[in-house]
């Protein structure tokens, strides 16, 4: 095996070795090489050290209310979708229904006017006959 620094795959070998991704044959080849190559040995040790030192960069545990906050955001988003799209439609729909109902109630029925007209005419005629009878009674010839 050639030196890591002179090998075009050297960088990848170095990274894979520190990440534990080399196969057994590759590990044996590399470890055999670094036994006799001081430069590569220092590089591999430095890389291994840096890779393991990253373990000290520990992250804190996730907050206990993480899920609650997430689900609250999901719910809020669903509700705002409802408010954006459906809320205006419902009152408009109700208003349209109310208007239609009101219009139906106000429009008069053409069939209703005929009987009323007949009743009025009959009443007028009766009144007229009564008046004529009254006049007859009041004329001097009828009194004699």
């Amino acid at each position, binding site marked *: 095996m050639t030196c890591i620094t002179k090998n075009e795959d050297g960088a990848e070998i170095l990274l894979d070795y520190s*990440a534990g991704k080399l196969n057994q044959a590759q590990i044996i080849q590399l470890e055999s090489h670094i036994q006799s190559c001081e430069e590569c040995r220092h590089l591999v040790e430095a890389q291994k050290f840096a890779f393991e*030192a*990253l373990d000290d960069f520990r*992250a804190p545990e996730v907050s206990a209310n993480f899920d609650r906050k*997430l689900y609250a*955001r999901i719910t809020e988003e669903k509700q705002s979708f409802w408010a954006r799209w459906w809320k205006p439609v419902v009152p408009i729909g109700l208003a349209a229904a109310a208007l239609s109902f009101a219009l139906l109630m106000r429009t008069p029925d053409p069939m209703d006017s005929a009987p009323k007209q007949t009743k009025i005419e009959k009443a007028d005629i009766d009144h007229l006959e009564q008046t004529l009878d009254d006049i007859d009674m009041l004329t001097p010839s009828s009194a004699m």
Partner: protein
Amino acid sequence: MEAVAALERDAELMLRVREGDETSFALLLERHRRPVVHFLYRMIPNQAVSEELAQEVFLRVYRSREKYEPTAKFSTWLFRIATHLALNWIRDNKNEKKQESLSDELIDGAERQITDAEPTVEARMLRQAKFDEVRRAVEALPEKQRAAVLMHKYEGFEYTQIARALSCSESAVKSLLFRAYESLRGRLAHMA
């Protein structure tokens, strides 16, 4: 084998979420909550910000559930969203000096959580010093190098996965990683 099975389960769960199964979403959250939060914390060492961004990641997953297609590994997709949000946040907050002091305040809180587990004061101080050193070394990396290293080191992602998460080529990822580790070797050598 186990890893492959886990990946298939993720895709299967997400397909169930697509069909409206909320329990499957909860299972995915349970499985990936910690890695995503930790990734974001190491990108932006501020617990409040990292958790808020992590929630945004899962919110986006939930939002796009109906369009989900298992064309890539679920974790790759998840970290692609997380990386995108982290890089945007860093870009948008680069010039805010206030952020540095807030960051320090919240780092202290997180550090206390991490170091309190040590048995002696000396051990705690040593852990604290190491934590500070490594955190600063990682923070000093350019953002894309930082993201690449975090996915490589803490998630064990393959180069192809990191490339998809960062929307770049595999050779670009290898270059990012090599330069990142070179910087880290330089900055951490004195701790050996």
